[in-house]
């Protein structure tokens, strides 16, 4: 009898869930497919107004705006006419390393930055064929390539007030006169002798140029450096590890959960001295709220990957900082993945959006598809987690406790020395690596290009030798459930659910671009540049480029008033290292284990950085 009752209850519960899902799906579809993204429906997220001004047709920073929406307000290109989209011009950059940077467009000039050696080209868009106005060659040290863990990539430059700000792989930040390409100042911000490089794109706001270091696999000490925009002088340095005075934690520090509260946690959550070589580098994306004056960014994995060597929470790695931009002081911090076991950095993009609250008000929030596989919606004033649902397949974490903010692990999936732990999902690059999502305020959806990889991992003792890898793990990655290595997911951050999903054969290493014309763009490792319908995910158009796409697509208004789409083709990065570095596929542990997951790539695509620009015919 009890069993029957339980059965009935289960049936009712399941039916209710199905009904709820169907109902929420319907209510979502009921949102009119407007191309005017002005007044937002109360049921969806909108971009943070102070950080996302109306589109002026330029693209001045990698994230498009401080809210990191990667959304273009241009709407000339639509699902109805995209079939006619064609190449307007191309530009060869003469490089063969992985091309992750977006072109920028400012007042009819396009600026292109290459991977190492980090050359910059200015192209005149007012003339036919976009001839080169000037070229900047910084002579970046070749030795830096030997300490760049996952390809000598560059993730973009930043334009502000007549200057371009550029990070060089060999640890320098440079300001260029955007009109002439002449160097205005150059400051050293990282040291390759310690295994530090700079691959991230700087963020410039309120007179500060913010730059982080790479090297989470090299035993570096992670930090964010603020340079004075005018002079290049160091204004403040906020370390990821170490005493509170180094991390810039003071009386104004108010973490959302007790677990991140205490004195000198950057020292006490490590074995003695290990915080000095504990990683927590800052190689990903920064967002900025001009109203709150807070800069947001995530920190990398702790080092070494062998977690047995570093018992403790390893603060403040694999979490999110909110810092005051003037002083660098930490307002709050939230550790997404305490004592990371699998290289689950937390450096992914942070979209600043306002989400509907329980009483009809809007909550200033941040949207974070994290490497650990959870889609975090957090109050960006306090850091409190509003929701954290998995957007990808996970078997090493059970969930996130919203009361304590704690990530709940699956205890049996903890690596031990001398044992090979199999079927870890997601693998080291996480459910999603560096390649940023786009957020459309028209649909209210986040478009997440990501990966579906699992791995075997065996850990062993790592020795710290400055300037060499500090890893201590053998890894072998392979496709996750379903066999597709890449996924493109459209996620509703309010309903906390997937709206559609596109399975891709190869891991997706390309960022996404959303447009007001309701067309979303992304590329594949074997070189297809794709346009899909923002509401349904239907493939509308595709074009095969010369190499693989890991570059950030952008959209701008040309001098002729037309809408253009630009993207760099040029395989590489961690996922494409097998091609660019000519790795041997017979060793599954190559490129920290990624080689095994993309053994076929060498036969499908060749290296070479070319920028493609598309438009509708005149």
């Amino acid at each position, binding site marked *: 009898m009890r069993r029957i009752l339980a059965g009935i209850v289960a049936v009712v519960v399941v039916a209710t869930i199905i009904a709820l899902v169907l109902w929420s799906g319907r209510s979502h579809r009921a949102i009119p497919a407007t191309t005017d993204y002005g007044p937002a429906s109360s049921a969806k997220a909108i971009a943070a107004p102070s950080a996302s001004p109306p589109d002026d047709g330029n693209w001045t920073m990698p994230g498009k705006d401080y809210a990191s929406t990667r959304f273009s307000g241009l709407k000339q290109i639509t699902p109805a006419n995209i079939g006619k989209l064609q190449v307007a011009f191309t530009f060869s950059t003469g490089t063969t390393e992985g091309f992750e940077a977006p072109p920028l467009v400012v007042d009819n000039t396009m600026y292109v930055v290459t991977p190492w050696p980090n050359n910059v080209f200015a192209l005149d868009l007012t003339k036919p064929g976009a001839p080169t106005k000037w070229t900047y060659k910084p002579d970046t040290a070749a030795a830096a390539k030997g300490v760049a863990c996952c390809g000598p990539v560059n993730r973009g430059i930043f334009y502000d007030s007549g200057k371009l700000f550029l990070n060089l792989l060999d640890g320098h930040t440079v300001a260029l006169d955007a009109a002439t390409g002449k160097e205005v100042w150059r400051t050293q911000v990282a040291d390759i002798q310690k295994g530090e490089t700079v691959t991230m794109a700087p963020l410039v706001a309120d007179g500060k140029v913010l730059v982080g270091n790479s090297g989470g696999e090299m035993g570096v000490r992670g930090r964010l450096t603020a340079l004075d925009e005018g002079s290049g002088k160091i204004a403040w340095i906020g370390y990821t590890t170490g005493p509170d005075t180094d991390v810039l934690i003071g009386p104004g520090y108010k973490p959302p959960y007790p677990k991140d509260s205490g004195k000198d946690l950057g020292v006490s959550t490590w074995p003695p001295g290990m915080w000095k070589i504990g990683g927590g580098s800052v190689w990903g994306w920064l967002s900025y709220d001009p109203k709150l004056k807070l800069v947001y960014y995530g920190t990398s994995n702790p080092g070494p990957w062998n977690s047995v060597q570093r018992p403790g929470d390893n603060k403040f790695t694999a979490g999110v900082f909110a810092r005051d931009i003037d002083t660098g002081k930490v307002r709050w911090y939230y550790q997404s993945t305490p004592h990371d076991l699998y290289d689950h950095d937390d450096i992914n993009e942070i979209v600043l959006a306002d989400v509907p609250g329980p009483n009809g008000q809007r909550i200033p929030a941040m949207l974070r598809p994290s490497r650990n596989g959870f889609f975090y919606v957090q109050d960006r004033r306090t850091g409190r987690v509003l929701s954290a649902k998995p957007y990808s397949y996970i078997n090493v974490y059970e969930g996130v406790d919203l009361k304590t903010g704690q990530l709940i692990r699956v205890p049996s999936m903890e690596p031990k020395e001398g044992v090979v732990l199999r079927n870890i999902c997601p693998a080291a690059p996480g459910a999603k690596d560096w390649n940023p999502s786009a957020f459309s305020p028209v649909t209210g959806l986040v478009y997440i290009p990501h990966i579906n990889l699992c791995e075997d991992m065996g850990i062993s003792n790592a*020795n710290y030798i400055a300037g060499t890898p500090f890893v201590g793990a053998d890894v072998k990655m392979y496709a996750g459930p379903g066999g597709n290595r890449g996924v493109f997911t459209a996620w509703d951050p309010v309903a906390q659910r997937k709206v559609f999903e596109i399975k891709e054969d190869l891991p997706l290493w390309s960022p996404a671009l959303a447009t007001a014309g309701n067309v979303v763009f992304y590329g594949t490792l074997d070189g297809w540049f794709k346009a899909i319908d923002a509401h349904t995910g239907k493939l509308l158009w595709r074009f095969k480029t010369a190499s693989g796409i890991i570059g950030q697509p952008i959209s701008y208004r040309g001098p002729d008033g037309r809408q253009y789409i630009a993207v760099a083709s040029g395989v590489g990065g961690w996922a494409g290292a097998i091609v660019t570095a000519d790795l041997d596929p017979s060793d599954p542990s190559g490129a920290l284990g990624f080689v095994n997951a993309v053994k076929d790539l060498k036969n499908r695509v060749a290296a070479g950085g070319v920028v493609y620009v598309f438009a509708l015919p005149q």
Partner: protein
Amino acid sequence: MSSRFPNKLAAVALLALLCGCHRDQQQPRGQPLGETIPAAASPDTIFPGGATPAPLDPRAADYEHNAYAIAQGQQLFTWMNCVGCHAHGGGGMGPALMDGKWRYGGRIDQIASSIADGRPNGMPAWRGKLTNQQIWQLAAYVRSLSGQVRKDAVGARADTMSNTPPQTETIRKPVEPADSAQ
């Protein structure tokens, strides 16, 4: 137990020793074999006016067909974090070492020279950080990754987390000349 059995065993062991004495030679102490890194191991393959590469350093054979040297080299390969860049031969931050392609020459003396003096695209210089003998041992192990050494001198068990097959199964790759990996 038969009293003749130990004698038989001893005979077999003696035979094995005679066959493999070179393979098993160890120099844990005393005069190290390669006390210098060869300066003449230029990776170049082109000689104006016609010439041939310098002859192979005679010490090479003592290392690259010696089980002890290769085993020591394998251990150092992990301890010195070579594995972080070159993986177990497949490469990563650094080039693959198992494919028979060499930017700076694939002879053991050329490899020893690359380890000692570094190379300009990011290979660190280990001279003064490792002993010269250790550098020769590492070079011998690196040669074994593309199957260049005797099969009875390499380990029959993979020294990694079950990701790579044992080196006895490594197929010998033809050594391409320097610059082949450019």
